[in-house]
C-alpha cells in the first residue's frame, strides 16, 4: 500500500504566543516547534497499517517553513520511509495547504491507497485541510476517528460524535482518515530511529513545483491579536444561611442572563 501522512508543525503547547508588531502573524523566532499532537496518531496509524500490509511504504508530507524540520524528522525517526516538504510560509490558508499536499502526492509519483492526518492542528484549529484534500482527490474521508480496522482495500472506522456516541463507517480505500486521540498510542522515536532518519530521503519542493500560486488564496488574514483577557470570576458571599436563598437566586439568574448556560 502507498500510505501518506500529512503532518503539520505547530508551536509547542507551552509556547507563549506573541503577535508581531504589525499584526500580520505571530512571532516565530522564539517558538519551539513540535509535530501537531493529533498528527502523531496519524503517523502511528500509518506505521501500524504498514506493519500489517507487507511491502507498504509510508510517506510523510508537510507544508511550511524549512527553518525547522522537526515534524518530518520525528515522523521518519518513528519509522516513516520518506518525506516531502513543500516550502511555504507557516500561515497559508487551508485551501492552499490542501492543494500543496495534493501537488506533493502527485510529485511523489505514487498513487495513494490511504491518506492519514490528524483531525485538526492545534495552532489555527481550522479543521478543514483533510476534508478539502479528500475532495480535491475525489476520495471519501472520515474525521475524528478513534478506531481503525481492516484490510488493504476495505476498512471499518469509528468516529466520535457529540455526546460521546460512536458512528461506525465501512470505507473502501483509497480514503482519507483524520485521527483523534484514542485511536492508538504513538510510539516514541527511538535513538537508533533518530540516527536512521538522518539517512532517509527528504525532498523539498516549492509552491510553484506543486502548482500553487497566490491566485489560490481563499482567506486573507488581516490581523493577529491575542484574545481579550478573561474577566475575573465572580464571588458570592453565602457564609450564613440567611443569605443563602438570595444568593442562589442571584446565581441562577446570572447563569441564565449572563452566562446563558441555563
Amino acid at each position, binding site marked *: 500500500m502507498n500510505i501518506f501522512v500529512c503532518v503539520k508543525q505547530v508551536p509547542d503547547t507551552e509556547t507563549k504566543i506573541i503577535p508581531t508588531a504589525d499584526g500580520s502573524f505571530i512571532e516565530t523566532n522564539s517558538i519551539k516547534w513540535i509535530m501537531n499532537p493529533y498528527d502523531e496518531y496519524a503517523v502511528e496509524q500509518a506505521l501500524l497499517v504498514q506493519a500489517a500490509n507487507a511491502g507498504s511504504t509510508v510517506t510523510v508530507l508537510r507544508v511550511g517553513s524549512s527553518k525547522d524540520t522537526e515534524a518530518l*524528522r*520525528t515522523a521518519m525517526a518513528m519509522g516513516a520511509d520518506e518525506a516531502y516538504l513543500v516550502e511555504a510560509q507557516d500561515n497559508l490558508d487551508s485551501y492552499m495547504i490542501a492543494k500543496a499536499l495534493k501537488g506533493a502526492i502527485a510529485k511523489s509519483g505514487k498513487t495513494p491507497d490511504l491518506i492519514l492526518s490528524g483531525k485538526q492542528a492545534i495552532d489555527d484549529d481550522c479543521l478543514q485541510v483533510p476534508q478539502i484534500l479528500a475532495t480535491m482527490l475525489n476520495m471519501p474521508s472520515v474525521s475524528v476517528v478513534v478506531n481503525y480496522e481492516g484490510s488493504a482495500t476495505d476498512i471499518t472506522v469509528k468516529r466520535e460524535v457529540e455526546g460521546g456516541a460512536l458512528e461506525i463507517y465501512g470505507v473502501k480505500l483509497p480514503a482519507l482518515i483524520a485521527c483523534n486521540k484514542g485511536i492508538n498510542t504513538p510510539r*516514541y*522515536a*527511538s*535513538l*537508533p530511529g*533518530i*540516527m536512521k532518519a*538522518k539517512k532517509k530521503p527528504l525532498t523539498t519542493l516549492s509552491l510553484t513545483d506543486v502548482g500553487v500560486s497566490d491566485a489560490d488564496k481563499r482567506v486573507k488574514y488581516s490581523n493577529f491579536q491575542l484574545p481579550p483577557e478573561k474577566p475575573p470570576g465572580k464571588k458570592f458571599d453565602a457564609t450564613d444561611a440567611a443569605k443563602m436563598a438570595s444568593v442562589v437566586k442571584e446565581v441562577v439568574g446570572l447563569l441564565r442572563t449572563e452566562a446563558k448556560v441555563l
Partner: protein
Amino acid sequence: MDFTLTPEQLEIKDLAMKFAKNEMMPRAHEFDEKATMPMDILKKAWELGLVNTCIPSEYGGNSFSAIDSMIITEALAYGCMGMNTAIMANDLALLPIVIGGTDEQKKRFLTPFTESYKIAAFCLTEPANGSDAGGIKTLIKEDGDDLIISGNKMWITNAGYADLFVLYGTTDPTLKHKGITAVVIEKGTPGIELGKKEDKMGHRCSDTRAVTFNNVRIPKKNMLGGLNQGWKIAMKTLDHSRPMVAASAVGGATCAYDHSVKYAKERIQFNVPISSHQAIQFMIAEMALKIEAARLLVHKAAWLLDNHQPNTLLASYAKAFAADSCMQITTDAVQIYGGYGYSKEYPVEKLMRDAKLIQVYEGTSQIQRLVIAKEIFTR
C-alpha cells in the same frame, strides 16, 4: 566556538525529555516510596536506546559522543535522579570494558547488553575505602589460568540485579594504586554473596548493596588491561563518568528550578504571587545562573573528551560545581515551597534528598577539590 546543539542532538534531547516527563516523573514518587527498581521503566528506556550510551556501534551500541550522553543523562535525571542512577550505573560499569577491554572482551561482554536489557554493577568502594580508592584491599590472586578474588565491596549500585560485576581489586595492597587490577565477573559465579538492600535517604528506587566475594574464581581472559593495570583504566573511566554524574546534577537541579518557577507564580502571600517578592526572585535567579554555568562545565568536560584532550580538571570542576549547585538549588526549592516543600505530597523534598548523593558518589565534593588543588600545585 559553538554552543549550539546539532539538530540530531536536539532530537535526542527531546526524546529523552519526553521519556523523562511521560514515563519517569509520574512514577518517581511511587518508586521512591516503595524503594524498588522500576524494571518496566528501565526496560522501556533501554528499548528506546537511552541506556548504555557508552557502547560503540561495532558492538551493537549507538556510538554516542560524550556530549550526546550528557544530554541523555541530564534529561533522565530530570525525570528521576534515582532511576537515572540505576541507568547510569550501567555506563559506569561498562566504561572500563570500553576503555580497557580487548576486541574479544568487548564482543563477549558489551554486545549482550545491546541485545536485551541487562544490568551491570561497578565495584570499587569497600567498607574501609571510599575516597581513598587506591587503598582498596580486595585481593586478586593468580592461580594458573585463573584469578581468585576475595574481599568486601560496599555501596554497590545495581548489585541485586547485576548480570555483570566490574570489579577493582589489588594483587598486593602494599603496592597501592600500582597493584590495582580490573576484572569482569559474571552473575552466578560461585562465591558472590549479596548483602541486604540499603535503606537510603534518596535514590531509593536504585538497588545499593554490599557484595562479598568469597574466593570467586574467574578465567584470566576476564581481566581488563592486564595485571596491575587497573588504576589507569579507573582514572580514564572517571574522566567520562564524572561529567555524566555532573550532568545528572544539572537535570535534577533543572527539575527543581522548573517546579520553583511554577509554584512561585501560583502561590499568593501578602496579596501577590510570591514571585513578586525580590527574596524569591533572587533565589530563582541564582538557580538559573548556576544551572547554566554547571551545564556549560559539563559540556566543556565532554567536549574535551570528544576531542581527545585531557579533561580531568574540567571533569572535577563540573562534578563539584554541578553537585553543590544541585544541593543548593533543591534546598532552595523546598524553601520556596514553604511548609508544602517539606511534605512528601509535593515533589521538591525528594529532589533535595536525591541531590545529596550526587555530592558523595563518584568522588565527594571534597575529593573533587583535592583533584583540582593537586592540578594547581603540581603543575
